[in-house]
């Protein structure tokens, strides 16, 4: 068998470079498939085959285009657990900041849709406003204790509901991926 001509070697090198972004196994398969056709051909015959093959960049683009899209990362239940824990009890452990961190995790997640995030944040924020209003309005009055209880209980109950809502949307997102 004739050794590869410089034209063939150069073409194979260009093909290999063009396929740099492709998975190694696919790159090897394409390059060796082309090499086994071109190796040992006479110069003119090899040039004709190379012309038939076309631009290495186009071959690489076709090859990469044909790969399946990478599977979306499966959402981690740890993120969900941490988010709802902060949302429901974070505000009691670290007043205000803990709850805000929970909201930030909701907004920052790529699993929930914008609509789900909007509903969750609005409900939780509304509960906070109602609780704060109850505390301030009833403060110093005979119903002051009721205001304090509402301040503590309303966000807890609403956020528990929001947590349930987020968890149900998380499960369906995990099923899709």
């Amino acid at each position: 068998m004739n050794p590869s001509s410089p034209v063939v070697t150069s073409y194979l090198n260009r093909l290999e470079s063009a396929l740099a972004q492709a998975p190694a196994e696919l790159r090897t398969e394409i390059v060796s498939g082309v090499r086994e056709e071109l190796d040992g051909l006479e110069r003119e015959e090899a040039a004709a085959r190379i012309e038939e093959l076309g631009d290495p960049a186009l071959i690489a683009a076709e090859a990469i285009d044909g790969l399946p899209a990478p599977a979306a990362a499966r959402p981690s239940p740890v993120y969900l657990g941490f988010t709802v824990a902060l949302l429901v009890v974070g505000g009691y452990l670290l007043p205000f900041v803990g709850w805000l961190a929970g909201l930030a995790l909701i907004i920052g997640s790529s699993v929930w849709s914008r609509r789900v995030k909007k509903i969750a944040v609005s409900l939780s924020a509304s509960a906070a406003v109602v609780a704060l209003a109850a505390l301030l309005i009833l403060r110093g009055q005979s119903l002051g204790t009721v205001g304090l209880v509402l301040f503590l209980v309303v966000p807890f109950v609403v956020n528990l509901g929001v947590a349930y809502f987020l968890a149900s949307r998380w499960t369906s997102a995990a099923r899709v991926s």
Partner: protein
Amino acid sequence: MATDIGAQLRKGVVEFCILGLLHREATYGWKLSEELVERGMIASIGTLYPVLGRLRAQGLVVLSDQVSDSGRPRKYYSLTAAGVTRLREFQDQWQPFTSTVSDLVGREKIE
């Protein structure tokens, strides 16, 4: 967004065309590519190998080292029993499918 109808259709059936060609005879990548490019089923050899990779991963096609008619060592692709079954399943569906689609879109050319 405008889509190339032909490209979408080819994408859907090219793996079965490869199974069909390999059912006729085991062959090597270049020969497969040449035939499919000539018939307009793939754009280049670059399109072929990802499909062959998927078919191998699914156990429908296997690779073996053989010597070609010209005496050169080649990697030959051939169908497995599962590949033959898959091709038969496709054949069973393809004729009724194309017939139904033709009925629905109309057999007369629209002027």
